């Protein structure tokens, strides 16, 4: 392949400027000010500035959904006008600038559980085995929470559509659908069903357990 006569790649490098700015963020019901570099993303402000490491970085450019947080306009009127649900809509913190997030009320995974313990979506994800490695799940659970806030009884296609911006590499999404349905009170977790055991081979053929998918 013909290599173009590009500029040498070190010509335009100088010591990076570290201009700090103080941003005021509204996170999980609290207002916090944090000094970040002027170009910091919301993800950096959350993880490095505020120690809220529950929000994950998977691709750092808006492709995977691991950094999802919920956001709604801070201004309640604007929130109503935009039809935001209670905690707002899922957005990607890795491509949101911290400075530009100051007008938003944000919910991260740390803000989902309350004094009552885990949010139903968190409880259901844990109970249903929807968490394997757990890395995509904070973002996934927030997308699911936003779905249930606006649509308390979603159909399977609606769940699939709502979670289609959160890539999961472990679960094949199957138990995630189950968890969302369980959190919505639409079904019980498969844990509730007893494990059906049949005799081992040599006695009476292999033991079998069959599981179906609710649609």
């Amino acid at each position, binding site marked *: 392949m013909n290599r173009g006569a590009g500029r040498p790649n070190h010509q335009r490098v100088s010591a990076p400027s570290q201009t700090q700015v103080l941003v005021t963020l509204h996170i999980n019901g609290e207002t916090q000010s944090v000094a970040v570099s002027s170009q910091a993303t919301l993800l950096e402000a959350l993880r490095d500035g505020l120690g809220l490491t529950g929000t994950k970085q998977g691709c750092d450019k808006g492709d995977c959904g691991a950094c999802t947080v919920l956001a709604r306009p801070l201004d309640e009127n604007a929130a109503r006008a935009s039809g935001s649900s209670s905690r707002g809509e899922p957005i990607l913190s890795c491509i949101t600038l911290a400075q530009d997030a100051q007008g938003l009320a944000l919910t991260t995974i740390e803000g989902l559980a309350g004094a009552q313990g885990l949010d139903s979506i968190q409880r259901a994800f844990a109970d249903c085995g929807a968490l394997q490695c757990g890395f995509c799940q904070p973002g996934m659970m927030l997308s699911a929470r936003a779905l249930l806030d606006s649509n308390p009884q979603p159909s399977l296609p609606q769940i699939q559509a709502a979670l289609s911006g959160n890539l999961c590499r472990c679960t094949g999404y199957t138990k*995630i659908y189950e968890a969302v349905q369980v959190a919505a009170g639409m079904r019980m977790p498969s844990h509730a069903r007893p494990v059906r055991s049949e005799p081992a081979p040599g006695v009476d053929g292999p033991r079998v357990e069959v599981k179906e998918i609710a649609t």
Partner: protein
Amino acid sequence: MSNTNGYRWHDPIHAPGGVGARIPKSDGAAKADGSGIFTDDLSFPRMLHAKLLRSPHAHARIRSIDTSKAEALPGVIATLIGSEMPARYGVIPWTHDEQALATDHVRFVGDEVACVAAVDERTAEAALRLIEVDYEVLPALLSPQDALAHPEIKVNERAKVGNITKHVSLSFGDVDGALSAATARSHHTYEYAGNTHAAIEPHCAVARADADGNLTVWSSTQIPHYVHRELSRVLGLAPARIRVIQPLLGGAFGGKSDPFSLEFCVAKLALKTGRPVKLLFTREEVFYSHRGRHPMTMDVQVALDADGRIAAVDNKILIDGGAYASFGLVTAYYSGQLLTGPYRFGSYRFDSTRVYTNKPPCGPKRGHGSVQPRFAFEVALDEAAAQLELDPIEVRRRNFIGENVDTVNGQRITSNGFLKCLELVESASGWKERHGRMGRGRGLGVAGSMYISGTAYPVYPNEMPQSGVLVKLDRSGRVAIFSGASDIGQGVNTLLCQIASEELGCDPRDVTVVASDTDLTPVDLGAYSSRVTFMTGTAAREACGKLRTQLKLAAADKLGCAADQVEIELGTIRSAADAAKNASFMQACQWAEAREGRPLAETGGYRTKDIGEGKLGGEYRGGTIGASPAYSFTAHIAEVEVDEETGLWRCTNVWAAHDCGKALNPTLVEGQIEGSVYMGVAEAQLEEMSYTASGQHRGPSLLDYRIPTSLDTPLIGASIVESGDPNGPYGAKEAGEGPLHAAIPAIANALFDACGIRVRELPFTPAKVLALIRARDEAQRGAAC
């Protein structure tokens, strides 16, 4: 009330659960509320951030590296080049062909050349652009065919002959005779494209050196023990001075089972600077680290006799290895050795060659080495069976190898629930009513497979245990399990809690698992080759079993009955004869501690030589590679819909049944089956590591390398078959890798049912499918004339 939609704490599922219970994962809550700590979540005062400079050339000599300008940049604390730690390493002791940073030779676009530690990532990134490297560009060999044709150009000096990493040729029985005598035959070439793990967590490592000269490395690895060994070798530091800790791991799938440059670099930089150092890969760098599925070109012959029995299988395999060996020596063997079940082969031959090329190194991806030949074989089997007008399920049933039997290449199969797997997917999918009758563009396909439950032997020969577990009981009733095994999301820590509960009667929530910390936990070789449930589970069962005896002896004294009359169940210990004579688990622990006169702690270990008949594998060179203490079996049926005008297709359903021996936790086993099916479908449909003519990855991002979203993933019906393996813990075998294999050929065979085309090249892009449909129409027109 809390912010719920009607779902509340659901009590029954939180009841204590031993083996076979569907208890939630032990780390589920920490992963659910965001408090779980992954490697990149670690931060230390004065921590530096490191970045790697990578080769822009697919193949070049390094004439010189000048880091002086980078070092002069304010904020840069240290730089690092290869000559500072030139020792070669590699996960397999016989193929040490990597360096943490290249000293004089770069072998692919993205190969690591230098490293910078600075006060933050931005400064480190800026400094990389100030490092001047003088390269002498060499011709790049980008395909295995080119690499074989040009032995004079050495991709990797470790290759003894040309660019060959490993060549294996094995033959069992009279293959040529059987081929010529066969009634039905399929002979075609298959192409399996490379693809990668794409765990959502990018690789990350953090290192800290203390004032006493001890080094701690936290890494997103699935093999802390091998990382420990290689760090010691490369850094020249006594292993007793090094501690490797694996925090929570955000997915691995084999992509984190090699030692990587980042671990050596953070360690060396921490030693150099006296400050903690973190290095987090960008997503692009994850693609360069790769170690994913090997591209394979397979020339496959399958021959059946008149009864539809497999008379001969012959496979000539060319493997594109990329720039380094990784597990490649094993890959070359696995590509042939693991095909010989669940069917009986009359004769078998394979000839496998793994070749170095100037691309990111391939390695072990879920179903290491055997996914590719399994695809080719299961398609060829379907095709040959069709010549005999045999139903695809029937031909598989007819060739079932059975239980307690040796394969043609001398692997010992113990339990085997494959027939039950076939039966389950046959009925779940409505095969009998639907196969062959679904109309144009819709179809069903079936495939089976087999996989290992751990390799028989460690990668470096030794007599020590392959897994070790230490269990401690406290007088508070708390149980602590120290295990070197890596929980990579599959849930081994949860299984350990369940095994403790099963043996000791404790509540699994009262178990602390201290895992994968080389200072604190007994050695476990790591989460690879589907070895963890089998081997770590066996070790844990042994340790817990010893403690169980101690509890029983102490309880017998206090309850006034014989030890063999003591029953342990769900939080209580009691006399079998008189249930009124009972005590809590905590009380029993105190009795036992008093009786023993020392703290309660026991260990357990696993060695293959201690189980069954001891030695495994065939009596020939390489016969132990692919030998496993037990094999898992899988059957899949896939359903597809094809748009014949465009070639666009989707897999709508997969029914998968997997024989895991015994589901220690059925929810976790289902999760492994579902995740495996998803990953197999992804390989069939979307994923491919594709390179430009100059050897650059075409799209090292999660936008361009398309992994399936929820909308691209079929509905998955997972079924568990429990064949009860005689050697597995409670009968358990593996579940994490086997269920991937059959998805791909099942889809290929479904595409045949849907439109009469045989796809032999992965991924089955719509362009390829459309071309095959056009060719089919052309052939039909020709036949009509």
